[in-house]
């Protein structure tokens, strides 16, 4: 009996169903939801059919809350077979339908339907996976994945929450698959790419079950064996913290890693410019660099006196760490984060796809951008004007023999260098000159 090799482990699938009533396919024809739900239930049951130990959870994601549709947190329903269907499958179907009705009934009537709380649902799913892993009997392994089925549009309002759950999932080795029923979803696609899952935008809702069975049924270890749709191109644009909009060029704070869309700052007193202004007012600029917290509009420690060398080091190491993290996400995009406090504003740049609409007309980045050569990839440094003047800039250029362009705005100086040049050398010189 040599059949004891190859440990067959179980697989846990968590399906997150977006039940938000303002999805377009539901508003067009509410009956489609029933069809989609049937397809999803059939898919869930086929997952359970694969192996005896396979586990399933379904989470309904509404605009006011997310809830487990299966397994039911309370006592399981007492189900008797009504036809030839396997009892467990009947239980799954009945539980999901019953709890979904409860979920929809519980929605606040007077409130307008908002955005689906997908990031929250993913977090719930991750918690569930963690719990199941704890309960796993020793010696067994379990692979887990999350499938998101949604017809909602792309929105960046939950950007930070999304990124948090995506990276957590990546760390927990949980795949995130996304099945989009309506529009292309670039943020969730990023999540798939980060965690190694599959992204599919269903061309038509009629064959939903077939799409699900073909693409999403194979477990992680079987995916390599089957021919499945490829990754395609992933749009890695980040959302700025001030407006929650996807930006092509963003500025990253060296300390807190928040991204803002331009150095001029955002209305409402947030952003780099505001931080700079205030820092200058309190006289604490020097070589400290700047700190600001993007979304809240509160400014961190800009008013503090010159930071000691130690704190600088500390923040440097944070930067290195996080730059690795970002670098993983930034494949494809040219994002560079420099561990130097003075280079406070680092530019993410080099996305191949540029969307004119998302550029902010008031930002200087846009101006620079328009002058820059769009095809050659470049690295941009920005420096505060007070520290660097154009004399230094020209000197640096001459001494290195590197062709570079400089731009100065009211508050900052930008240096644009060809990508092939030795950036490290320039930076060294630059620091030398400044100090």
């Amino acid at each position, binding site marked *: *009996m*040599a*059949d*004891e*090799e*190859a*440990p*067959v482990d179980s697989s846990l699938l968590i399906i997150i169903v977006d039940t938000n009533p303002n999805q377009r396919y539901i508003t067009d024809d509410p009956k489609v939801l029933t069809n989609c739900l049937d397809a999803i239930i*059939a898919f869930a*049951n*086929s997952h359970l*059919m*694969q*192996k*005896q*130990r396979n586990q399933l959870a379904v989470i309904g994601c509404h605009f006011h809350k997310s809830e487990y549709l299966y397994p039911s947190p309370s006592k399981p329903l007492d189900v*008797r*077979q*009504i*036809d*030839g*269907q*396997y*009892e*467990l*499958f*009947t239980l799954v*179907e009945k539980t999901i339908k019953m709890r979904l009705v409860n979920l929809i009934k519980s929605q606040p009537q007077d409130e307008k339907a908002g955005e689906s709380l997908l990031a929250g649902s993913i977090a719930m799913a991750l918690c569930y996976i963690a719990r199941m892993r704890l309960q796993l*009997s*020793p*010696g*067994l392994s379990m692979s887990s994945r999350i499938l998101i089925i949604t017809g909602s549009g792309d929105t960046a309002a939950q950007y930070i929450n999304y990124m948090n759950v995506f990276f957590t999932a990546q760390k927990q080795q949980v795949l995130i698959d996304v099945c989009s029923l309506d529009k292309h979803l670039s943020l969730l696609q990023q999540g798939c790419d980060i965690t190694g899952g599959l992204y599919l935008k269903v061309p038509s809702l009629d064959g939903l*079950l*077939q799409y699900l*069975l*073909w693409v999403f*049924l*194979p477990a992680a270890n*079987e995916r*390599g*064996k*089957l*021919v499945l749709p490829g990754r395609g191109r992933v749009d890695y644009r980040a959302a700025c913290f001030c407006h929650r909009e996807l930006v092509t060029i963003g500025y990253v704070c060296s300390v807190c890693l928040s991204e803002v869309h331009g150095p001029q700052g955002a209305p409402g007193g947030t952003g780099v410019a505001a931080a700079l202004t205030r820092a200058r007012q309190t006289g604490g600029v020097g070589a400290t660099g700047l700190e600001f917290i993007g979304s809240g509009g509160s400014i961190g420690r800009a008013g503090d006196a010159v930071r000691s060398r130690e704190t600088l080091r500390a923040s440097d190491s944070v930067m290195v760490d996080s730059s690795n993290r970002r670098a993983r996400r930034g494949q494809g995009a040219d994002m560079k984060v420099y561990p130097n406090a003075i280079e406070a504003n680092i530019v993410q740049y080099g996305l191949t796809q540029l969307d004119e609409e998302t550029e902010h007309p008031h930002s200087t980045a846009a101006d620079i951008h328009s002058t820059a050569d769009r095809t050659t990839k470049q690295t941009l440094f920005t420096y505060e004007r007070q520290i660097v003047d154009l004399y230094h800039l020209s000197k640096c250029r001459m001494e290195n023999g590197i062709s570079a362009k400089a731009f100065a705005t009211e508050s900052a100086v930008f240096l644009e260098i060809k990508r092939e040049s030795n950036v490290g050398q320039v930076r060294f010189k630059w620091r030398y000159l400044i100090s």
Partner: protein
Amino acid sequence: MSESKSSKSSSNLNPSPTLQCKDLHEYLKSRSPQFLETLYNYPTICLAVYRELPELARHFVIRLLFVEQPVPQAVVASWVSQAYSKEQNKACEALSELSVWQEAPIPGGLPGWILAQSFKKNLKVALLGGGRPWSMSSSLEPDGKARDIAFLDAYALERWECVLHYMVGSQQTEGISADAVRILLHAGLMTRDAEDGSAVITRAGFQFLLLSTAKQVWLFLQHYLHTAEKRSLSAAECLAFLYQLSFSTLGKDYSTEGLSNNMLVFLQHLREFGLVYQRKRKAGRFYPTRLALNIACVRGGAAPLEPTGGSKHGHILLETNYRVYAYTDSTLQIALLGLFTQLLYRFPNLVVGVLTRESVRQALRGGITAAQLIHYLEQHAHPQMLKSETGGIRSSSMLPPTVVDQIKLWESERNRFTYTEGVVYNQFLSQTDFVVLRDYARAQNVLTWQNERTRTMVVTRAGHDDVKKFWKRYSKNS
């Protein structure tokens, strides 16, 4: 010249016959296509067969499930990436063997596959609903004396151990029926003693004891089904009922209403082995136990659903110094351990033994294989063993690798011979005759051994006919 045929039977070739435990796939493969055809009329069987398929085959089936026309074989092949074509062939083979799909020509003349009609229909029923409910699920009044899962586990264990105890020491005959004994005898697990006619355990029986409980039950039931056919019970019906049980929910009661008389008899037998619990023969309801539920996971690797938190979970600790500590007081477990260890100390709840070359070889001589030994130790490993890491190396087994390797080496040192079937040619009248025939056999690549001095040669069984023909032709000509 004479040729002495040494017709070795297969038992000669394999001096220590090991117990064969077929899984469902192998069992069904050995049955006729007509039998399979009747089986596929039961949704339960379709579900069970589906789970037994290789993983790629499962995806083939699910992709073809909603397709009505035949699908070209080339298309099916294109679903799998090139690097795994071997696995794909295996999957296709499995599907054909179990007649889950058939070859069907496509209008363009290309060969195609189509799922067997009844299989497709009934798998859909099991997955999506429709059709008639399974025979045992008519509605019931709530049971006033409902039994919980712990009770059922204890009951099943007690019943099954009863059978095992009977095998080890047949003095205790209460609680086991003549039918069960007949099955044990039929399976060759026990045999009638020549002197007093009492049943004694055979070597195969000891191997049986080393199997996991799920496998024991499955093997036992396989033999039951064999004997069932003689008792005018339909094997297909029994098998379908068994799988119905395995797809039921633990701790839930089911109705006996609507079961045929044959199935009621079968149910009583299952009750005896502890697969179902019934308070009274005429109770009208029964509870399937974990033994019945585990039938579906006999296939290697799929660890059975063990009762959680039970003390019976595992009790053996194996250390790198070959010491075995078993926390048990069951005479059965101790007897089993004694098969392959040298027992040193015995305490009320603990037995200490050591694995030695002699003790293991004794077990090997008894027909137990190293794989079975290792599997037994793994199966009953103490939870503490499962937790311990093997020095950062994630090996497939939680046992110390040194011991596992040594057991395997002890086994392989016994297998220094390789057996080839052959035919001896000797007593040649002349040297030339011998040389001619030998050279011919050598040219045909069928010569196993030859000695010129004694004019003896051995050719393989496959080459015998050819060489014989050549010899006839040659001797006629000369």
